[in-house]
Structures are given as structure tokens and as C-alpha cells.
């Protein structure tokens, strides 16, 4: 009884407190209802959960069978089926370490060592060649592991590089300042696709004969080069936000440039720019799907390849929704984590 009254007050206050608002509320509820009932019919009532492609074509609903049939390929690409536990193990390790590192109490040096270990272990796991693991060439890597490796390594390297570039752009030394500014402006001025092209087509031409650098590494370098320019501008925004008095106080205490930056300015500046930093990271996570143009099969491209199977033509919606969910899961978690961090630092009263 009490509850229903509380609900009524809430509705009145938030949904029907003016004529315009009541009208909008009704319209939105109607639209929402229409959409949900359509979706329910598509995904449950008329969907094919068990059967084959022919059954799917006859039904008007979703073809869940398609995803059941293809999820292995979408997630892991051309990785040999018998060895599939290796990328799975790789993802599990990677995600566990990401979650472990997200707690502030684990922000210490030994976590960095764990990361170094993880990169070593996952390279061995994915590539094989030792410990009697059969070799899997990197052009067979694909799907989710590739997406995750490209983005996680990308963030790890481009974040510190971005900080260095941002400091460089504000440096008093003209050569460093001009170099950083030119680099940032140049990279921001071209699309990421062109960088990927250069890394795969032009870059090998400059290498001495016989030297081959793996395509994944070249793509990784292109991504890092691109993202660190954006990261630099994000960090510079934070540096700009720190009052001059902080620099002066640190300098007046006899701290040198690096100590001033590391101990006083950056800890504050990086906290200020958590939202745009995560913004850049999320953008980059999704941009890794551009590696398709140099024939690397990330999550997006394996899904597109699965759609081209002549036996299973025409299930685009199912395929796209499936990977949209995966992308959403990762991006949403990152956004959520960024808000947790902001709250934590605000509570400490350290952002004043």
C-alpha cells in the first residue's frame, strides 16, 4: 500500500508534472512497448533456436542457430579448432589481470611485472612453437583475442607515450616542443586507415631485404602511433587545468622538472582527464576493427566472414547484434569503471 503510494508520487513528480511532460511520457511508453513486443516476437516467439538454415529461412524471427553454429569462428577466427583452448586461456588470463589491476590497492610495481609476464605467456600461448605447443602462424589469429590484444597493448603503450608527447608539447625546449607539436598535428590530421595502409604497404618497402615484421605488430604500431597523438591532447588538457601555483610550489621546494611532473602535476592532471581518457580508450577499442583493410581478422571481420558462408547467407541482423553485444559489454564496463574512479577520487577530496 505504502509502496504503491510512493510509486504514484514518484510517477507524478517525474513523468506527469506538466502537460508537455505527460504527453512525452505517454508517447515514449507506447514506442517502448511497440518495440519490446516486436523484439520479443522476433527473438522468442518466432525465433529458431533449434534446427538448420532452411528452418531459419522459413521462420520470420531470429536465427539463433546461426550464432550457435558460428560463434566459434566469430570469436576465434581461423585458429585451429584443436588448439582453441589456447586463445580461450589467453582471454581468461587477460581479463582476470584487467580486473585485478582495476583495484586501486593493486596499483604497484609487481602488477606491472604480472603484465609483462602475461604478454610473454600469451605470445607463447597464441603462437606456440615451444613447450610442444604446435606453431600457429599469426595470420591464423583472429576474432576476439586479436581485438583484445590490439587494444590492450595499444592502451598500455600509447598512454605513457601520450603523456610524454603532452609534456613535450609544453616543454620549454624548442626542439622537443616543435617535434611533439608536429607529430601530434600530423597524426591527427590523417585518418587511421591511412596509417594502417602505410604500415602494411609502404613500411615493408623501407626494410632491408629478408627482414619481415609480422603484420600484427605493424598494425599494432600504427594503432599506437595514432592513439598516442589523441592521448597526448587529452593529457595536455589536464596539464592546462592545474593552476600555476602548483608548479611554483613544487619548484620552490627544490623539486626538479621530472619530480614536479611525476609527483605533483601528473597525479592531479591525469585524474582530471579520466572521462576523456576513457573516451579515447573506448574509441580505440572500436577502431581496432579497421585492421580488416590490411586483412587482419578481428572480431568484426570474422563476423563478416561468417555472414558470407553460402550455407548461412542472409542472417546479418543476428550477426551484427551478436558482436554489438560483445562490443557493448566491453565499452560499457570501461565507462562504468571510469565513473567509479571519478567518484573515488572525488570522495577523497583530492580534486579541488
Amino acid at each position, binding site marked *: 500500500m505504502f509502496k504503491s503510494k510512493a510509486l504514484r508520487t514518484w510517477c507524478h513528480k517525474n513523468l506527469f508534472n506538466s502537460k508537455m511532460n505527460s504527453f512525452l511520457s505517454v508517447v515514449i511508453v507506447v514506442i517502448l512497448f511497440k518495440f519490446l513486443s516486436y523484439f520479443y516476437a522476433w527473438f522468442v516467439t518466432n525465433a529458431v533456436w533449434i534446427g538448420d538454415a532452411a528452418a531459419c529461412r522459413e521462420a520470420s524471427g531470429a536465427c539463433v542457430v546461426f550464432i550457435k553454429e558460428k560463434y566459434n569462428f566469430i570469436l576465434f577466427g581461423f585458429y585451429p579448432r584443436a588448439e582453441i583452448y589456447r586463445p580461450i586461456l589467453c582471454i581468461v588470463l587477460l581479463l582476470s589481470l584487467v580486473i585485478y589491476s582495476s583495484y586501486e590497492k593493486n596499483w604497484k610495481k609487481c602488477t606491472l611485472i604480472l603484465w609483462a609476464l602475461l604478454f610473454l605467456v600469451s605470445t607463447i600461448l597464441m603462437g606456440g612453437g615451444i613447450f610442444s605447443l604446435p606453431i600457429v602462424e599469426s595470420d591464423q589469429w583472429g576474432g576476439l583475442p586479436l581485438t583484445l590484444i590490439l587494444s590492450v597493448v595499444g592502451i598500455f603503450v600509447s598512454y605513457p607515450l601520450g603523456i610524454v608527447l603532452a609534456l613535450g608539447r609544453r616543454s620549454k625546449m624548442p626542439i622537443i616542443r616543435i617535434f611533439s607539436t608536429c607529430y601530434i598535428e600530423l597524426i591527427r590530421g590523417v585518418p587511421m586507415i591511412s596509417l594502417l595502409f602505410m604500415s602494411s604497404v609502404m613500411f615493408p618497402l623501407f626494410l632491408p631485404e629478408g627482414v619481415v615484421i609480422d603484420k600484427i605488430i605493424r598494425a599494432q604500431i600504427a594503432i599506437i602511433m595514432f592513439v598516442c597523438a589523441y592521448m597526448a591532447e587529452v593529457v595536455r588538457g589536464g596539464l592546462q587545468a592545474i593552476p600555476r601555483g602548483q608548479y611554483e610550489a613544487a619548484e*620552490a*621546494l*627544490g*623539486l626538479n622538472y621530472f*619530480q614536479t611532473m611525476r609527483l605533483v602535476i601528473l597525479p592531479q592532471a591525469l585524474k582530471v582527464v579520466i572521462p576523456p581518457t576513457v573516451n579515447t580508450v573506448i574509441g580505440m577499442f572500436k577502431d581496432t576493427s579497421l585492421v580488416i583493410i590490411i586483412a587482419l581478422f578481428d572480431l568484426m571481420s570474422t563476423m563478416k566472414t561468417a555472414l558470407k558462408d553460402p550455407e548461412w547467407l542472409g542472417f546479418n541482423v543476428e550477426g551484427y547484434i551478436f558482436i554489438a553485444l560483445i562490443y557493448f559489454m566491453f565499452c560499457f564496463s570501461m565507462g562504468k569503471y571510469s565513473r567509479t574512479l571519478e567518484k573515488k577520487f572525488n570522495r577523497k577530496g583530492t580534486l*579541488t
Partner: protein
Amino acid sequence: MNQVIEIKNLSKWFDDFQVLKDINLNVKKGEKIVICGPSGSGKSTLIRCVNRLEVHQEGSVRVNGIELTDNVEVIESTRKVVGMVFQHFNLFPHLTILENLTLAPMWAKKLNKNEALEIANKYLDIVQIADQAHKYPGQLSGGQKQRVAIARSLCLKPEIMLFDEPTSALDPEMVKEVLDVMTKLAEEGMTMICVTHEMGFAKQVADRMVFMDEGKIVEESSPEEFFNNPKSERTKKFLNQILH
């Protein structure tokens, strides 16, 4: 001979505007100088030249006989013997009070953590703020913040302290607690240059008064003479304005 600060023919420009015009000032060890003057007269700029937060264009500044140049090592070692307290405290908001105090001893002086903590606790006691050691600056009042800022400078065991209007940003009832700390420091024989308009403090503590206007030192005299018998018209006018 025992001049710790020697400023000779110092001139400084911000673009086309000359803020300091041919300043000469010597400070002996243990001497307390109070600099006053209307805003924009170059008082703050002058003391900021002493630890090279501002770079001068002409003349020379010597601290302990060493001339300040662009040499980074000279600047850094000078800053370790010249403490500075700012109008707006400039505490580091992301660090606790204790961490604010131990930062410079640990990094600039390379003391180990225990030594730094010992020094920090000692000065927190002296400025009577030991009970706030684990709070963040944002949780303190203005007067408390400024006392922490003084303690932070003292942790480097400086020979000279510069105060840049330390009480101007405080609520009136907090001025006294900060001045008390400064008076105590003066009594212990610290060499001090204070930019301040607290004339009571100046009368009590200063060995010498310096009055500046439009980038020049207009009058330099003992406090008795300065307050009772100022020579220049400009000084008389200024004292009339602030004392009545």
C-alpha cells in the same frame, strides 16, 4: 660580509612593462625585512626573483654569494635553502598533510622515509597541526592550510624564508594564528623577507622596512623611522591609507 642575499641593479620587464626598476637590496643573516607598497608595485615579483620563480633581465641576484643564472643545478640548490610561502598556500591537494611535508625532503633532499617523517612530525608540532596529519588539504581551514604550507617549507631546513602576502587570502580571524607562527620563526633567528600589509606584525618583527612603488624602492628604513617619521610623501600617503 655576511650578506645572504645581495640584489644589485635588478631590473625586470613583463614584455614592454618594466616591473622592477634598478633595485638594490642586501639582507644579512638573521635579518627580517618587511616589504610593503601598493598592489602592482613589484613586491611579489621582487621576492620571486630571489628563488628564481621569476627571471630578471638586468642586474644580479646572489644568494649565499652564488649568482642566480639559468643554470638548473644552481637554481635547484638555491631553492633548497630558500623556502617560500604563497598567498594561496599552494598545498598539493592530492596528498595528505603529512605527504605534503615529506615530499620535498624525500625527493629533493633524498632522505629516507623515516627521517622525512620525523622532520615532518616535528614541524607539524611546531605549527600545532599534528592532529590533522592524515587529512587532505581540502578538509582544512585557510589558517590551517597556511600553517601547513609554512611547515612544508621548513621541512627542507631553509636558511631564508620568503613570505608572499601569507595572510591576504585568509579570513580575518585566522590571520593571527599564521602571524604567531611567523613571529615565532622570527624569534628563532630565521632570515625572512615578508611581503605583507600586517603593520602590527611589521612593527613587532621587522629589522628593516622597505616601501616600494611603481617598481622602485621608495624608502628603506628602520620600523621606528618608517612609521613615525617617513621621509617621502608617497610613503606618508600610503601609511595614511592603511593605518586609518
